[in-house]
Every structure is written in C-alpha cells, then in structure tokens.
C-alpha cells in the first residue's frame, strides 16, 4: 500500500522527464567520461611514472618517480627546441593566419563585389582538404629544383631556396602551408562578424566625414573585437598542437628545426614507448595552452573596458 503511494507520487511528469534526461545523456556521458576524462586524469598519473616499453609488456614494472620526468625534460635540449619551434609556429603562424582571414573576409564583404559565393567556396576549399595529402602536394611545390615556389621566385630574380632542407626556411615553409590551409575557417567567422556590424554606424561615420580607412579603424575593428578574440583563441589552441605538417613534410628536421611539442611527444610515446615522459610533455603542452588562453582572455577583458 505504502509502496503504491510512493510509486504514484514518484511517477509525476517531472520524475519521468528527469529519468528520461539521464537516460538520454547517459551514452554520451559514459563515452566521454571513459574515453576522454578518465584518460586525461590517468595521463597526470602516467606522467609521474617511469612507464616504458617494459611496462607496456607487463604493467607490474611501473614505478612512481614523482616529478623526475618533468625535471628531466627541463634539462633536455630537445624539449627546449620543440618548445621554441612550437612557439615560433604559433606566434608567427597564428597572427599571420588571422590577418589573412580578415583580409579575405574584408574583400568578400565589399559591397561592389559579385560572385561572392563562388569566391567564398574557392577560399574555403583548402580548409576541407585532407592535411596529409596537401602537405605532400606542398612538399613537391617546395622542391628546390622542380618546385613551383622557386620557379616563381626565379621569375622575379630571387635565387632558389631549399625550403624544407634548410633549417632557416623549413619552419617558414610549414607556416605558409598552415596559413593557406586554415585561413578559410576564420574567414567565414569574420564574414559573419562583419555582417553583424550595424549599417547605421558606417552611415554615421561617413556623415562625420570619415573615409574608408578611418571607418575601418573606428567602426569595423572595435565591432569585430569579440570575433577577433574568438578566432585568436581557437587558432592559437590549434596551432600549439602542430603535428601532421612536420610529420609528413620534414619528420621534424632538418636538424630538428620543425620538431614540435606534439611530434616530440609522439616520438617519445609511440616510437620509443617512453609513455611516462610523453605524458609529461602532453601535460606541459596543456599548461601552455591553458596559460596562453588565460592571457588572451585577460587581454580581451582589458581591451573591452
């Protein structure tokens, strides 16, 4: 009798919706918890162990070593090289990509331009292509003897560059590829941002006698600020994770000039099976991304004021 009352009271619409809610999110939650959050937490544990090839064979060989992996990394010149390369790529490539995206968006947003959809499709096409495939294509375009880059440079009297074979040029070459591959994504977001700037702001500025350049500085840019920060944060997070371009084009060379943190992590973890060390690299990368994102968000708040 009591049980019946409880049951009747429990099966209210709210109870039903609540149960349904949990059932509906359960598959996604379980998958994300087991295959993402759990490994992330385990990664922190892994990074304080000496997990290596012997531990892959038999997990009983694992020993806790505390912060030794981190200390070792800080004394490892390869780590510092990978860190430097990653910052080089992100700090030059990121802003260059965002600037290219903004330029393309401004062109496509110009009032007089027709065939906008056509141009937008072409500009966006590199973004949907498979990175590994186009990295191989660019490898040939960068060929010192037969590649189109040097041919074009030769036409304006510049001597051939050994793009991927010269430690000074390999990273710029990878940055150029990344700009080409990725600018289309940010461009779309900038176009959406540009279209949301109220037209009367431009009209008012124009009545005040502001020309195109001043309108850009005083109307367009301030109104684009939120878009700018979104694009900046997303691009930088992605660029700190540089991997496939050097893997395919240079395998981190020449002389380690394009070895990125993720490539270093991959080699430590999956080539030499030093999973403990690799997990420490992954965690340091995470901290770098977190720190950089925090800096960007603070900058946004300061500028918004």
């Amino acid at each position, binding site marked *: 009798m009591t049980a019946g009352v409880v049951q009747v009271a429990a099966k209210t619409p709210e109870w039903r*919706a*609540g*149960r*349904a*809610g949990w*059932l*509906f*999110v359960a598959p*996604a*939650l379980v*998958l*994300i918890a087991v*295959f993402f*959050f*759990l*490994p*992330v937490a385990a*990664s922190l544990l892994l990074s304080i162990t000496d997990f290596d090839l012997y531990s892959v064979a038999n997990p009983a060989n694992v020993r806790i070593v505390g912060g030794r992996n981190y200390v070792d990394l800080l004394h490892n010149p390869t780590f510092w090289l990978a860190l430097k390369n990653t910052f080089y790529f992100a700090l030059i490539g990121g802003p260059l990509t965002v600037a290219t995206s903004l330029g*393309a968006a401004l062109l496509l947003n110009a009032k*007089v331009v027709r065939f906008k959809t056509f*141009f937008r*499709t*072409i*500009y*966006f*096409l*590199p973004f*949907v*292509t*498979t*990175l*590994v*495939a*186009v990295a*191989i*294509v*660019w490898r*040939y375009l960068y060929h010192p*003897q*037969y590649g*189109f880059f040097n*041919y074009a440079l030769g036409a304006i009297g510049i001597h051939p560059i050994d793009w991927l074979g010269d430690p000074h040029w390999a990273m710029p070459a990878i940055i150029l590829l990344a700009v*080409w591959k990725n600018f289309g994504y940010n461009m*779309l*977001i900038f176009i959406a941002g540009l279209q949301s700037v109220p037209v009367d702001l431009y009209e008012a500025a124009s009545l005040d006698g502001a020309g195109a350049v001043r309108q850009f500085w005083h109307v367009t840019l301030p109104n684009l600020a939120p*878009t700018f920060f*979104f694009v900046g944060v997303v691009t930088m997070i992605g660029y700190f*994770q540089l991997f*496939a371009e050097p*893997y395919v084009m240079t395998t981190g060379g020449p002389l380690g000039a394009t070895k990125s943190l*993720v490539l270093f*992590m*991959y080699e430590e973890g*999956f080539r030499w099976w030093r*999973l403990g060390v690799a997990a420490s690299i*992954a965690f340091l*990368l*995470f901290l770098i*991304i977190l720190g950089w*994102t925090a800096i960007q968000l603070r900058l946004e708040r300061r500028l918004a004021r």
Partner: protein
Amino acid sequence: MKRLRVTTVLLYAALIIGALLSIFPILWMISASFMPTGMANTFPPRLIPDHPTLQHYRDVFTRLNMGRYLLNSGIIATVVTVLSLVVNSMAGYAFAKLRFRGRDPLFRAMSTGLVIPVQVAMLPLFLLLKSLGLINSYWGVIVPGMASIFGIFLIRQYAISIPDDLLDAARIDGASEGRIYRSIVLPTITPILATLAIWTFLSTWNDFMWPLIVLSDERRYTLPVALASLVGEHVQDTELMMAGSVLTVLPVVIVFLFLQRYYIQGVMAGSVKG
C-alpha cells in the same frame, strides 16, 4: 565615380589573385596526377600534361592497394558519423530540453573538456584500448570519436529553440520520451543534424594522429595514414603520389561542394561556442 571604379578593379584583382593562390596547389595536384612518369619533375615546371594518362590511378589501386584504404576510411568515417549523430543528438536534446537534477553543473563540467588538448588523453587511451583488445581495429578509431563535446554543444544550441508546448502537448497525449525524441525532436533539428553529420564525416576522414597511433596493421590503414607511410617509399614518384592524394582529397571535396550550405552553417554556429 572614376575613383570608385579604380577601387573596384583593385578589389577584383586582389580577389582573383587570392582565388588563384587558394586553388593552385589543388589544381596542380590534379594535373600532376595525369602526367606521364617524370613530367612533374622537370624544369621549368609544367602545368598541363601533354599526354594525359590514367596509369597512376591504375597503379594506385593495383600496386599501392589504395582501394583497401579507401574502403577503410569510408567505413570508419561512416560508422563514426552515424553513431555520433545518435549519441550527440540525444545528449544535446536532453541538455537543452529535459529538466533533470544536476543537469547544468554536469553540462558546465563537461564543457571544461573543450580546452583540454586531445593529445593529453591519447597515451592512457592507447593503453585502455589495448587492454580492451581494440588496438589495430576499426573500433579503436571509432569508439573515441562516438561522442563529442562540440557535437553536444551544437545540438543543444539548436534544440533550445524547440517550443516546450510542443513537447508537453505530446506528453499529455501519452507519448513516451523516446517517441517524442524520434517523431518530434529529430525532424525539428534535421538542419543541425546535417551540419554535424558533414562536420563529423570530414573531420574523421581527414584525421591523422589518432588513426596513426591505433592502426599498426597496414591492411587497416585509413587513407591519410597510408599516404604518409607510402610517401616515404615513393617520394620520387611524384605523379603516383599525386594520384594517391587526389584519391584522398576528392571524396571530402565532393561532399563539401554538394553540401557546403550545411557545412558553412556549422562553422558559423561553432563560432558561438566561445
């Protein structure tokens, strides 16, 4: 008036130069794949093959076995797309419309995952999948891709605009929650499902690092993994590698060109997530 016309000409010039730069590597890849062996390695570089040949496409399928990789990529991307649509749409709808205890804190906790780089999870994930016996299988690639925080975000944002009255009316008529999801929610959110489907398909197809880690047996390679491995051995065979690249890129480019309306919507919607 005259100044305006000068600006217009300059604008178009910039647009066309930009378009040429964007499309050139893709066009050259296609053109070189039809060149007879050796023609792509000449100076001055050639743009158009004078005797186009299909030889490299034949070789790609017979000698390099890329039909197999095409099949692997197709199976993995399709299965991930279908499963992730079901899993993410259920969760996204529930987070938007079903009131349950702990919903909002749960959603916030899950969102923190968006700032964690996937590489952090990869090493333990490899060990986990190894203990489950999923290394070197399709499932090793599929399972971690089945639920995505971004996908749940995308669906939730869209599903929020479903009117509550519509759902409540169905409840009063005695429809079960599962029935409501199938016959009211799914038809309403079709546009965003299309976006998510294309987005998932393309990013799974193009994904490189995780398949590279999980798949060690050549017969299970996806196209990008196979291509990266073949280029080591066949680096001199420019035309052959270009045929392989075309085969890898073409399916996603075709999907994009036909469904770009939905895809671009997805990019724009993604920009709100920040």
